[in-house]
């Protein structure tokens, strides 16, 4: 499937800023937040005020991707979110505890359900199409892409809006930090949607040539999966011009990442994309958006990789986490 348009809100100046690749800003803080754009020309101001951050970031990137693609009524809206609408969940929980289950108001509860971003997009577009939300930790975005790919096979010619969103809140930062999640990387967040189709539109960014997810793979399974993904596309490991790794520079020593990064793709230059977006479960959507931008512009984010070849054809987006989730996504120049 082809990425025909894409939009991202992240801790970088990524929203409608094609020059971002020339001046990415390294994240220094321990906790980082998205740089939110002025939403006025995308969402009605009176609606924005009612939306939590994840909803407005998700809706804005969704609407932006649709506008870029010139689409007003997609055939499917598919969203990944690991944590869902944490801000509204936290608000309702706090009031429920403090008021001892009395005197509660519905707004936060209504907006706390995991499908709110996809639902709000449908509502704003008056779109009655297929609408689904996947919530499988670091595979939430990948599962959404698998669904989109399947949808395109079932409905050739369809236009699918697919993306992911996760937000960081005071509560989630405080709790996740206690789990040690941000020891090696800044806490992050982001929203990203893309329009995908079975045919490239004029100005298409890149082609997704395969998405593979693995959970607790047995010995050898990860290597086999990479080999199969490459073989399916008639490629060899040496054809991967750049690896966009969801891991961290220090992480590569760990066996789960080392296999891919230091053995199978040892000679490929790497970018650690979480240095730009921070640590969060659907960061691979940012990785995909970044990869698509890199292929389109034939430009590697300044300062992150000095060894990338001049012509970038095939990128591998790879992530692994300590819970046993791995994903491999192959992205090719249009």
């Amino acid at each position: 499937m082809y990425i025909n348009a894409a939009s991202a809100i992240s801790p970088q100046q990524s929203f409608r800023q094609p020059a971002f690749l020339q001046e990415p800003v390294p994240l220094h803080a321990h906790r980082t937040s998205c740089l939110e754009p002025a939403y006025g020309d995308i969402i009605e101001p009176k609606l924005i005020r009612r939306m939590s951050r994840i909803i407005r970031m998700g809706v804005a990137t969704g609407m932006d991707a649709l506008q870029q693609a010139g689409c007003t009524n997609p055939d499917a809206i598919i969203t990944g979110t690991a944590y869902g609408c944490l801000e509204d969940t936290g608000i309702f929980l706090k009031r429920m505890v403090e008021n001892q289950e009395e005197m509660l108001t519905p707004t936060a509860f209504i907006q706390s359900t995991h499908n709110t971003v996809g639902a709000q997009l449908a509502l704003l577009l008056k779109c009655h199409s297929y609408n689904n939300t996947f919530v499988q930790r670091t595979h939430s975005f990948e599962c959404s892409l698998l669904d989109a790919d399947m949808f395109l096979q079932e409905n050739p010619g369809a236009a699918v809006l697919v993306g992911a969103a996760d937000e960081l809140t005071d509560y989630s930062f405080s709790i996740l930090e206690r789990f040690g999640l941000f020891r090696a990387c800044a806490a992050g967040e982001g929203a990203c949607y893309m329009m995908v189709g079975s045919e490239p539109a004029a100005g298409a960014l890149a082609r997704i040539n395969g998405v593979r997810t693995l959970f607790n793979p047995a010995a050898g399974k990860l290597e086999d999966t990479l080999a199969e993904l490459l073989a399916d596309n008639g490629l060899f490991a040496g054809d991967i011009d750049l690896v966009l790794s969801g891991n961290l520079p220090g992480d590569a020593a760990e066996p789960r990442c080392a296999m891919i990064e230091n053995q199978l793709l040892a000679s490929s230059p790497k970018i650690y994309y979480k240095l730009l977006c921070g640590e969060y479960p659907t960061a691979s959507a940012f990785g995909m958006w970044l990869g698509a931008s890199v292929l389109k512009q034939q430009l590697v984010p300044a300062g992150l990789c000095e060894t990338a070849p001049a012509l970038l054809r095939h990128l591998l987006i790879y992530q692994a986490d300590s819970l046993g989730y791995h994903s491999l996504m192959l992205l090719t120049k249009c």
Partner: protein
Amino acid sequence: MSAAVYIAGLGAISAIGNNVQENISALKESRAGLGPIRYLQTRYADIFPAGEVKASNEELAAICGWTGTNSRTAMLGYLAAKEALQDAGLVQHGTTWMAGEENCKVGLISATSVGGMDLTEDFFPDFLANPHAGKLRMVSQHECGAITEKMALALGISEFITTISTACSSSANAIMMGARMIRNGMLDVVVAGGTDALSRFTLNGFNTLMILDSQLCQPFDKGRRGLNLGEGAGFVVLVSSRVAAALGKELKIVVSGYCNANDAHHQTASSPEGIGSFTAMKGAMKMAALQPSDIDYINLHGTGTQNNDSSESTAIQRIFGDAYPKMSSTKSFTGHTLAACGGIEAVYSAVSLQEQCLFPGLRIEVPVIEKPGVMVQTFEKAEGIRHVLSNSFGFGGNCSSLIFSLV
């Protein structure tokens, strides 16, 4: 793409029973599972009736054989999914799943709306008082995906796992996703369904919407006042025709149609004309190549709220005119089990087809659909039930319909 997807196994746990057989006995004997809340700690225990699974967390853990801290959502899901796998007759050799002599790729596609919220809401008072307080094991299962992951590890499923969360249509979408993955040749077997435990979070949330009934709910009754919440899990084992043949038993039920549509009307309310539900039902029938007259029974979404039942009955009227199929809402037994209802009601629908019988909706005094004989109000033996339509509609306008057919 047109390959059949068979149902090879069923598993359910709800207010009316800890397994499929207990559920079906209660349905046949018109025994509802609704009543005062006895297991969840809440100030509304004696105010809003609910359909709780009749077991404490300790008792559920003992049945699961689990120790440590476990979300009730994960335990309910594990028990129903395990029952479904055993019913299907799939066996595991090492890490390989086998159907008879054939290796198969097995996935778990679950659904939940609360995830581990039952634990998180117990963690929160300590955490609010002091951000360094509260035991982390109480919040480590908060994510919906963590529940499915825990189930998958206990079941021995690793080929593919995912979770869908589209409010009350979640498990219908999980079954649809499972059927599609089999049709697309990505998996051979999918354990598909959903699980939700009752939590103070959802109970209080629904209370703020003022749609909870303080009496026993009366879905599809003109005098209905609202819904009773329930909890539970329901899973079906979907298999490809290759696996169906390898299992060596006669499988009679297929997933013949499905459709996911969005009402796009309001975040929590359904449109008066039932655009989403109409589109979902129509889409599922189109896929199954069925005419309205082919549908023999509808397992309604039928929550008992003014809004849902009015919108759903309008959509049904628009499709079927005056030629209504028989229908009932089994939520009058189980309560509204949210993300689990599509899974539980898929199990009931499959048993209806298998045993050629219709389960009633209880407590109807003045039916919303007045035509005599349409609302099933007592257990009926029936003949010639070939196609059952099951509806699941949710917040966010998410509407999904499934059709199960006898082959």
